[in-house]
């Protein structure tokens, strides 16, 4: 059965229909052709599909697309301002925190959600914020470096 979804994605009103069994991730990738959020485990364990849903990071692969109705969603595509990358994106490049890159959009969204809550995260808060994201290249130290760098940049703004 098809449902109509009226939602706001990266500040833009979107209306489209999808089958009731569609996940928010499938809705983004397949219906709206927004391929930035990644499909990986599809069980809510790896974090590659993380988006911000009404201000909170969630796994879009285990969220119903129908629950996007009336919600505000931010995806990786919504972070850069034209050609100017978001400080979290830039920090991932500057510290070399990107290897194969598949987990990167999910990480960047988790980190953005963290730095929206606080620009002075503690080590514990950093660990908590990205504990639901897996990097299979295991480049974790550089990711933590990127988070510190992004936090510094955002404090200076």
């Amino acid at each position, binding site marked *: 059965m098809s449902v109509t979804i009226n939602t706001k994605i990266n500040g833009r009103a979107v209306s489209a229909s999808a089958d009731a069994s569609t996940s928010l991730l499938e809705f983004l990738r397949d219906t709206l052709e927004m391929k930035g959020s990644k499909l990986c485990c599809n069980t809510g364990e790896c974090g590659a599909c993380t988006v911000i849903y009404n201000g909170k990071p969630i796994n879009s692969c285990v969220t*119903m697309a129908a629950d996007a109705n009336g919600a505000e969603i931010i995806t990786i595509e919504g972070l850069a301002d034209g050609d100017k990358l978001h400080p979290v994106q830039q920090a991932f490049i500057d510290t070399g925190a990107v290897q194969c890159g598949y987990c990167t959009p999910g990480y960047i969204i988790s980190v953005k959600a963290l730095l929206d809550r606080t620009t002075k995260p503690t080590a514990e808060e950093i660990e908590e914020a990205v504990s639901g994201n897996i990097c299979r290249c295991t480049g974790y130290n550089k990711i933590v470096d990127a988070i510190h760098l992004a936090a510094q940049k955002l404090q200076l703004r």
Partner: protein
Amino acid sequence: MEYFEPKTVNEALSVLAEHGAEAKVIAGGTDVMVDIKYKEEPGCLVNIKKLPGMTRIQENGSSLRIGALVTIHELELNPLVREKLPVLWEAAHQFASLQIRNTATLGGNICRASPSGETLAPLLVLEAKGRLAFSDGEKTEPFTSFFQGPGKSVLGTKGLLTEIDVPYPPSGSKSVYLKHAVRGAMDIAMVGVAVLITPDGGKNNMQDVRIGLGAVAPTPVRATKTEALLRGKPLTATLLKEAAALAASESSPISDQRSSAEYRRWIVEALTRRGLEQTWKAATGKEVA
């Protein structure tokens, strides 16, 4: 697949009454969406996320009433949960990832009726009760008798859990929730043990002891024989050893991809021992004699 977004509990109940066993209730979706992708689509999906009045956490005398749609992260952030129900807070805090905690609901964790449900052993030692809605009326059911097997509860296919009533533990009591998993918080528990000790007035004996075991039987269970062995006594090293072994024998774990049954029994023994030792010290200020 048919799809419903009922606006009231009564509407949800009549959809369930009509569609019965082919209907699946969905709230956060963190389990049901995985079933849809990897197992099979239900004939009918009933999304209860927008039902009104089920997202509150309210103090009611000496208990906390928690709406079934409260998310695990909302529980974790609630100061009353942290102060008055620390054992439930610990389970919420150790529950999967932040992304999952932002979506998964307490009601969903309960109704899934998985033996390894993170909040279940804590709810058992807190002697929490569920408020259940059926088309012929409401009912209150303690969680000690709510679960009937993996994925099965007294709700059957036609009931809805609307609220969880969690009494505050006796004053002076101390509790702990210990979880054993490979990948820290993200992983499903191989074993979860919740312990709550209430000391007597002189802090010499355990006036009350409650032990909840998760992931080691077809449902989460209380280790009632072990509790009876300990009640009214001071915690000595001999008693501690005996109690931990008894708790292990009260469990009936299975072997699966996470661990063997034998290993799970060892862990029950170790976590029960550790949990009792910690809570005894916290509650009485005394070392195990």
